[in-house]
């Protein structure tokens, strides 16, 4: 089985702080990481590889620095890594991004594509389903489990708000997975060696099957009109008090608000 895993390098948004005076982002020193849901997707691919044998190709679109997360993928056990990196992709929204990725996928031989549910910087959860549509593949999103059946089909668990759907999918498909369901493995020693010995292939737009006009900013129907720091709420009262006093303060407030 040939599996493609889509990964994205993202800033660790849990490390981003807001300047309390200016209300702007403090981005300095924020580490870049492999997007958690994507790492979960890689873990699923590697589990399928352990169970039934598979060749795992990790793909990403981003600047040359994104090389780091692809080496991390090697260290976890990926077999091949391709980084799509070209100025022509700059400014792409989810439609143009998924289109570029579809052009890459079309040049590869695959049975299954796995993506993370969403990236922690954009939080759109759109690239996976949009990619599936570009490639005319069935999709299953919010995946918490996937197993290969004897007939070659996949048995997949999809997490909904109020239920889990157990789905069977026939033939090639695209899954978007939840990080919480796939605790990623540690990098192995031999994997870490591989990470530095294996080549991360860097491809430009000319190597993939796309129309240039549909890439990057020109191929993006949505535009950012403006962005601004989130309006800050007026800070409330903060008390450093004994537990007894704290209980008193809270009870009084709850009474004032007619909650008790």
């Amino acid at each position: 089985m040939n599996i493609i895993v889509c990964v994205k390098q993202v800033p660790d948004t849990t490390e981003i702080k807001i300047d309390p005076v200016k209300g702007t982002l403090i981005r300095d020193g924020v580490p870049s990481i492999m997007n958690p849901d994507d790492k979960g997707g890689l873990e699923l691919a590697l589990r399928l590889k352990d169970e039934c044998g598979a060749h795992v190709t990790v793909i990403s679109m981003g600047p040359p620095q994104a090389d780091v997360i692809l080496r991390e993928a090697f260290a976890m056990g990926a077999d091949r890594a391709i980084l799509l990196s070209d100025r022509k992709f700059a400014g792409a929204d989810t439609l143009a991004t998924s289109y570029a990725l579809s052009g890459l996928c079309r040049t590869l031989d695959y049975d299954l594509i796995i993506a993370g549910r969403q990236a922690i910087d954009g939080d759109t959860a759109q690239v996976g389903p949009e990619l599936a549509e570009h490639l005319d593949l069935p999709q299953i999103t919010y995946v918490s489990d996937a197993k290969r059946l004897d007939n070659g089909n996949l048995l997949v668990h999809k997490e909904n708000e109020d239920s889990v759907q157990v789905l069977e999918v026939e033939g090639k498909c695209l899954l978007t997975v939840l990080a919480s369901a796939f605790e990623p493995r540690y990098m192995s020693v031999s994997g870490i060696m591989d990470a530095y010995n294996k080549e991360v292939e860097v491809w430009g737009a000319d190597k993939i099957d796309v129309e240039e006009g549909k890439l990057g900013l020109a191929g993006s129907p949505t535009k950012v009109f403006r962005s601004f720091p989130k309006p800050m709420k007026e800070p409330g009262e903060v008390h450093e008090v004994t537990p007894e006093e704290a209980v008193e303060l809270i009870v009084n407030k709850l009474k004032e608000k007619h909650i008790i």
Partner: protein
Amino acid sequence: MEKKDFKNVFVFAEQREGVIQPVAFELLGKARDLADVLEEKVVAMLLGCGIKDKAQELIEFGADEVIVVDTPELKDFLSEQYSQAVSQIILDRKPHIVLYGATTIGRDLAPRLASRLKTGLTADCTKLEIQPVKDEEKEFCMTRPAFGGNLMATIVCPNNRPQMSTVRPGVMQKMERDASRKGVITEFAPKFDTSKFKVKVVETIKADKEIADIAEAKILVSGGRGVHDKEGFNKLQALADVLDGQVASSRAMVDNGVMPHECQVGQTGKTVRPQLYMACGISGAIQHLAGMEESDFIIAINKDKFAPIFSVADLGIVGDLHKIVPMLTERIKKEMEK
């Protein structure tokens, strides 16, 4: 096809097992505002099996027309079946704007359609308005949190139609139900290409009914890393019980398996807007704040006086929740007995 040929504000009216979801009514409320500004109509799309009789409800909550697709193929939500039906409605009726709930259904369906229709989609919008962007030109402005909630971005989709967005449950206000409202109900029969139906439902496992939806709760006692473990959450549960509320959780305590995903508040969990939100041992990562800061009243208890949760709390207590919460529970019990 010209832009001006696309008219009316459409809402994908999500139903589950024949029950129209609250987010559908919320979207109708917003669609009504937008349509009134644009002088266009609000059209709801109701898809499913055996759901025809629910259409009137959508009219009473603001729809001028309901397009109903009632067919066995749409009994369960499946991406391809629903995408075929909705894309055919959109190609036939050419809406100006289409709104979806940002649920596991809406966030599966809407991007699939955006890619099929080659148009723009903006996820998880918190504000939707028709606004002048330059000179006299008005655009549909979709504002959403970006960067894990650290920044707000206003997105426009100037050249492609329809313009589409998803909106989280609990963000928009629904209209007062008006049983006297009149509207049109239209049936639509899509032509399915069944050769593309590759996914079938083997089984649906219902979530434990005991876990009530935190998004509907009036009072939430929520815990983070500082609660430590299940035993810590028992203290929170006891407090929630005396307040007739529910327990919720930060992402950290879901990721480490202490709490179920259904209880998670925040960017990757649920958006909540209770009357009272008590954040216990939650530091207040921006992703968490994004899911709860619209609560009417926020009390935070945290050991770290620099915890960001205090920036959104109406009342902040620097202290040990493990001491305060049980004492508070006892005290409120006594107050209630009075």
